């Protein structure tokens, strides 16, 4: 990827932003646009832009009077930048076409994300083109100029200073050193000001626990690559916990099957997460049991006196002293202190738990927000500046917060969109999307990531940095603000002897730089006393961030709403997950709506029966029921039997944060006692998969095939004895027919490592973005008509709460003997000379025979004309891929546009295509590097080697469709295979 790709240093360098029309021109919501209308508008906007230029001080927009040498129409150029969508700070490469970013890919050189990118970051590009964004500064719902706003705000600040009231800046964790710097400037200017950070998905107790144990409030850096034994107590570190992409990359490093040993991962969890699905051993435990277990382990480590699972785990951990890692995702101080004690006893500190260069991804304090609430109650707050958080929604005390805000004279919201909180604020400062702004971030101590604008700002937006600086009396351009800070502070910390200008240019070009971290002195380990923790037995709520919604800040992203949850396969909803036994006990069926009550409040949610979940747990995803999701009312095709995407509350899903409580100031996300009462109502759950195992239903299972052999699995020990263990190969089918397709030049193939795949669904979103896959809405998904070209099949095996979960990414298998090809009457699906099965959209008449005949059911039919009406949103479409019309079939093309591009590039250079020149969208995004693509005709290619690997097998090999997509057996590091539980 990085070999020949040229990253642009900055927007200014190429000045290609004039063709982007402003949102005012494009916000039209008219439904039918044809090419002419589009051209007219585009032409008009361009003309208006060039002649008027009055919107923003456009001092760098120069039309292509002289074509810049580097910019070739139709050819993408790339910027290195940083993603701010999920808070872990992955380095991205932004693909720009005709001056608009259309796709984000992980920056392979970036030390945090190492080339992977989570689905949330992948999907965040569409939010840039959201026509419902806030585009203008507002005071009391009236558009104003920034100058007027600033005057107004500064007056307000003065007044509150006069009244002896506080100015509070309430933000999420600020990772940008320059922003921190300008906030400090502001705090200096207004001595009554205070900065409070909190994270909606709180890690507060980890930080607090480190303060207790080591005297410093830090979030350590966890090194999964250095751990031979990982014990995770309800931490979904491959899915949502702190920095999942980085952890997945690291986790994979210690699981190379060539090594003598691989890490062993034990997951203790109450619900079912993708991390639990990947674990070598998974135990379902309720939160109180996990607390007990943590105590047992600690005891066992110190006195060898404990018994049961705790001592077993302790013994195993002890064997890996200094090479083990214990983490917990439960936001509880006692558990986190126990975790610190265990890690300390295991001598993991500064080996797998790094205190020297800690993570700066999360720094929030729940306690500080609780303090703020009481300050607000006593009327001490005179001005409130809110950025990046949505306390009215996020906090358990949201309603109270909202009421208290009314009495604050000046409330300022920095936001991209209207939120529950911003609608309570009297001053609105529209924030830019991170793809149109400057920023610098230190997510990990010593690694600085650069964010640069990749498009001219679509609205009249400003960052918190710029406004705070200007309120502190420093007026400057966004870029200059960042650069000046750097010049001042990093000139001395930079490595090497380059001049600052040069160094800065390289930094912007690369997207990141490593600097000398400030030395951090931690206190000596203190045992500390455990605060009294009170974990109730009985039915308890576990509120967790789902992979797609996290804390809900992306709830208006249609791609994420329609991304199936990797475990539940649910879209467009949050549900109350309970175990089968609990459901039977309460006589509930899937889809029955229950009322979940706690803390004198309640919420109505549909039941989802989750295999493998602890019986006393109700797991509910956070991030749903956000205001603003009303916009999805009309999503999806309209026809007589269409049902609404929104629930009774006219929102997508239900907010549950008001059910949460606090313990020692920290917000309790799991283990809250709840009660459930049936309401008698029912809901349709939009699931993309409804049959959950590979075992045939009992009453229709033929004796010869109880379980279908699509997931082939072995243990690490077995694998070491016999690398082909677990992979059952059918007999080679001999054919008398001459080969139809000789594949003289290339023969593309793919292999997917089931052992690596974590089910994180980054590939699913990447494919959707790359290939213009439409969003169809909840009802269509419910009718099993989702359009995803790439899906992740999820199968359970085992019983009760002791289950294994397997993921199988499934897309067109590009069979050499494709069953779909001969049945098409009009030759709309044909075989390429390079082994691809190609769909010719404009020849397709839509008989659907190909889809019926596909054994893998990967073909997708355009049942309707899917909406592409939002002009602004259409800017995200990939111009290299046709937008399909109604009535035609579509499916994975193996990113033919990428293959062609690489071929043309190689040809232009006169070089043969090298292995790895082509990276498919799914492959590129995969944080686990589970997908390999290449030329089967090249014996030296990675793919050819994998095809020869004893682990390699094809799904449904016996049909002789000869798929070119193969799978590698799943290898778990456990003693023996569970009898009868394995997948076949």
């Amino acid at each position: 990827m990085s070999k020949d790709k040229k990253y642009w240093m900055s927007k200014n360098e190429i000045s290609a932003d004039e063709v982007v029309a402003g949102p005012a021109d494009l916000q039209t919501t008219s439904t039918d646009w044809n090419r002419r209308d589009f051209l007219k508008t585009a032409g008009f906007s361009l003309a208006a832009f060039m002649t008027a230029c009055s919107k923003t001080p456009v001092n760098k927009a120069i039309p292509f009077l002289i074509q810049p040498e580097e910019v070739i129409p139709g050819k993408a150029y790339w910027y290195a930048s940083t993603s701010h969508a999920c808070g872990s700070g992955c380095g991205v490469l932004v693909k720009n076409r005709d001056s608009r970013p259309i796709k984000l890919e992980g920056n392979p050189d970036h030390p945090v994300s190492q080339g992977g990118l989570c689905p949330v970051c992948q999907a965040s590009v569409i939010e840039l083109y959201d026509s419902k964004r806030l585009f203008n500064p507002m005071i009391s719902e009236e558009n104003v100029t920034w100058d007027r706003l600033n005057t107004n705000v500064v007056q307000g600040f003065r007044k509150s200073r006069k009244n002896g009231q506080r100015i509070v800046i309430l933000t999420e964790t600020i990772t940008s050193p320059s922003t921190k710097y300008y906030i400090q400037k502001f705090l200096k200017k207004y001595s009554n000001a205070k900065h409070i950070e909190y994270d909606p998905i709180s890690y507060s107790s980890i930080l607090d626990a480190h303060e207790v144990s080591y005297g410093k409030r830090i979030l350590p850096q966890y090194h999964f690559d250095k751990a031979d034994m990982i014990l995770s107590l309800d931490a979904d570190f491959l899915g949502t916990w702190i920095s999942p992409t980085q952890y997945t990359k690291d986790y994979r490093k210690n699981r190379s099957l060539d090594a003598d040993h691989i890490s062993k991962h034990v997951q203790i969890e109450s619900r079912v997460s993708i991390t639990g699905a990947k674990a070598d051993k998974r135990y379902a435990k309720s939160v109180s049991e996990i607390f007990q277990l943590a105590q047992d382990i600690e005891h066992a480590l110190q006195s060898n006196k404990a018994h049961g699972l705790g001592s077993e785990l302790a013994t195993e951990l002890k064997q890996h002293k200094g090479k083990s890692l214990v983490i917990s995702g439960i936001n509880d101080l006692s558990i986190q202190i126990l975790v610190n004690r265990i890690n300390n006893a295991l001598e993991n500190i500064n080996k797998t738990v790094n205190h020297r260069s800690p993570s700066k991804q999360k720094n929030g304090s729940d306690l500080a927000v609780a303090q703020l609430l009481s300050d607000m109650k006593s009327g001490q707050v005179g001005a409130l500046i809110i950025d990046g958080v949505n306390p009215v929604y996020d906090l358990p005390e949201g309603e109270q917060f909202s009421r208290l805000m009314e009495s604050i004279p000046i409330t300022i919201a920095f936001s991209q969109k209207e939120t529950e909180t911003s609608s309570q604020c009297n001053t609105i400062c529209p924030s830019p999307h991170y793809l149109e702004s400057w920023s610098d971030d230190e997510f990990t101590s010593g690694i600085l990531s650069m964010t640069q604008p990749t498009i001219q700002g679509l609205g009249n937006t400003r960052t918190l940095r710029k406004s705070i600086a200007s309120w502190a009396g420093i007026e400057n351009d966004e870029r200059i603000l960042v650069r000046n800070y750097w010049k001042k502070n990093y000139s001395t910390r930079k490595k090497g002897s380059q001049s600052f200008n040069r160094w800065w240019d390289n930094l912007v070009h690369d997207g990141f730089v490593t600097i000398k971290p400030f030395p951090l002195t931690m206190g000596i380990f203190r045992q500390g006393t455990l605060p009294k923790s009170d974990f109730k037995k009985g039915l308890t709520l576990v509120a967790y961030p789902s992979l797609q919604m996290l804390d809900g800040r992306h709830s208006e992203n249609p791609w994420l709403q329609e991304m199936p949850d990797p475990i539940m396969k649910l879209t467009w909803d949050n549900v109350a997950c309970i175990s089968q036994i609990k459901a039977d006990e309460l006589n509930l069926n899937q889809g029955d709506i229950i009322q979940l009550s706690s803390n004198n409040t309640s919420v109505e949610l549909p039941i989802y029966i989750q295999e493998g979940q602890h019986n006393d747990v109700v797991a509910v995803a956070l991030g749903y029921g956000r205001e603003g999701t009303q916009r999805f009312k009309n999503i999806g095709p309209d026809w007589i039997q269409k049902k609404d995407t929104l629930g009774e509350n006219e929102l997508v899903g239900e907010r549950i944060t008001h059910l949460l409580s606090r313990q020692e100031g920290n917000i309790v996300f799991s283990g809250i006692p709840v009660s459930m009462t049936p309401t008698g109502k029912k809901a349709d759950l939009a699931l993309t998969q409804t049959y959950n195992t590979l075992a045939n239903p009992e009453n229709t299972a033929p004796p010869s095939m109880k379980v279908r052999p699509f997931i082939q699995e072995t243990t690490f020990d077995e694998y070491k004895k016999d690398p082909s263990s677990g992979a059952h190969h059918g007999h080679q089918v001999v054919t008398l027919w001459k080969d139809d397709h000789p594949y003289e030049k290339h023969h593309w193939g793919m292999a997917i490592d089931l052992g690596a795949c974590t089910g994180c669904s980054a590939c699913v979103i990447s494919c959707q973005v790359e290939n213009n896959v439409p969003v169809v809405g909840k009802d269509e998904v419910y009718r099993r008509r989702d359009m995803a070209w790439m899906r992740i099949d999820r199968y359970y095996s085992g019983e009760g709460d002791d289950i294994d979960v397997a993921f199988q990414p499934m897309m067109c298998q590009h069979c050499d003997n494709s069953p779909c090809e001969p049945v098409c009457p009009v030759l709309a699906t044909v075989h390429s000379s390079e082994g691809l099965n190609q769909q010719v959209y404009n020849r397709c008449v839509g008989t659907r025979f190909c889809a019926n005949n596909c054994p893998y059911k990967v073909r997708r039919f355009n049942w309707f004309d899917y909406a592409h009406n939002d002009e602004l949103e259409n800017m995200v479409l990939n111009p290299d891929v046709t937008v399909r019309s109604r009535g035609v079939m579509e499916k994975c093309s193996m990113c033919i546009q990428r293959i062609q591009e690489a071929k043309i590039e190689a040809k232009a250079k006169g070089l043969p295509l090298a292995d790895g020149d082509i990276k498919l969208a799914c492959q590129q995004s995969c944080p686990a590097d589970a997908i390999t693509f290449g030329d089967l005709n090249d014996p030296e290619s990675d793919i050819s080697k994998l095809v020869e690997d004893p682990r390699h097998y094809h799904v449904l090999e016996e049909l002789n469709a000869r798929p070119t997509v193969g799978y590698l057996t799943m290898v778990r590091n456990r003693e023996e295979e569970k009898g009868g539980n394995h997948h076949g």
Partner: protein
Amino acid sequence: MANHVESIREPLVHGNKNLKTITNDVLGIMDKKPTRLWWIGFLLALSALTLGIVAVSYQIMTGIGTWGLNKTVGWAFDITNFVFWVGIGHAGTLISAILFLFRQKWRTSINRSAEAMTIFAVMCAGMFPIIHMGRPWMAYWMFPYPNTRGPLWINFRSPLAWDVFAISTYLIISAVFWYIGMIPDLATVRDRAKTRVKKAIFGFLSFGWSGSFKTWHRYETVYGLLAGLAAPLVVSVHTIVSFDFATSAIPGWHTTTFPPYFVAGAVFSGFAMVLTLLLIARKTLRLEDYITVKHIENMTKVIILTGGIVTLSYATEFFMAWYSGNGYEQFVFLNRAMGPFAWAYWIMVGCNLITPQFFWFKKIRTNMLMVFILTIFINIGMWFERFVIIVTSLHRDFLPSSWAMYKPSYVEIATLIGSFGLFFTLFMLFIRYMPIISIGEVKSVLQFKGRSGGKK
């Protein structure tokens, strides 16, 4: 001699008919004002057709999404209806062509309406492959015609392309055969016509038929040739339709027994439909003398035979699934009998296996009401047979992740009703405006006093 024959062979036409009364009986229907019963039937059929037209127009304007199909079940009502209607047609061709070649004289009073039924059924059937397309306005791409796109030909390997040939051939041959057979009767209508207009129309339609020996001679040669051409279609059309499934890779479809199984099923369902229609026509148009109990009995016997073949096919499928040792195949059949669509399967078994067994009893065979009810059951059963084959095979195929259910939408149900509307509207118009019984042929089997009818 004559008396001897008479005593053995029951006359094919009852009621002491002579040449004149036959002409009057048959063409009298066309002269009289339509009865109230006809109007009720016609308007009912027309309403159903209108509903169908609305549904299909809506579907074509909005998209196939207005049907209950999904990514797993790509065909359901559409192709079920298609196969059902094609099957219905087969009885007509069998009666008019094969029974003609075997010189079965009893066919004469029913062949005209049976053939008409064939044509209407094929018209209904032909509608479905077109409207089931995602882009029906491109339906002409299914034909191999020289074009400016390369030329780009169709895929001759696709069974759907074979269908296009099979169905269009079938429609053309059936229509020609039916029409040629009708020419002498059309001439009779022309000769009896009282108004100029009617005379002119039927004069044109009868192609200047003179009734001369030479004309009759030529006519019979052509008719015989066409019968010869049509006869193989009885077997070939449904064989090719069955290839739509048999050549696929889906368990439950991928079966070599499909061609005979489908042909037998087609004749089975076709005869049931002929009986349903003729029992109505016989009653309402008072044609008991022409369509006698003997006709009905003969047709029920064909149903017993073809029903037996169908039963055997069902059994063979299960046997082969077991015998193949193929888990996917075995699963599909267990899933049919015991899965989520078991209700459809058992409706099919109940209607197609048990119903025909009643026809072993002469008492039931000769009870017209019973026969009528039983044929309705067979019609339902044979519709469900196609539904079961298509939907149960698709809804749970190889990968359990894709398993899905299917539920028809209102539009699909309306389209099915509409296809019945089209069929009955055409049939009602036919029995009103065309000679419903082949006058010329019936006359040839008439037994005059003291003479045997139709020597053989």
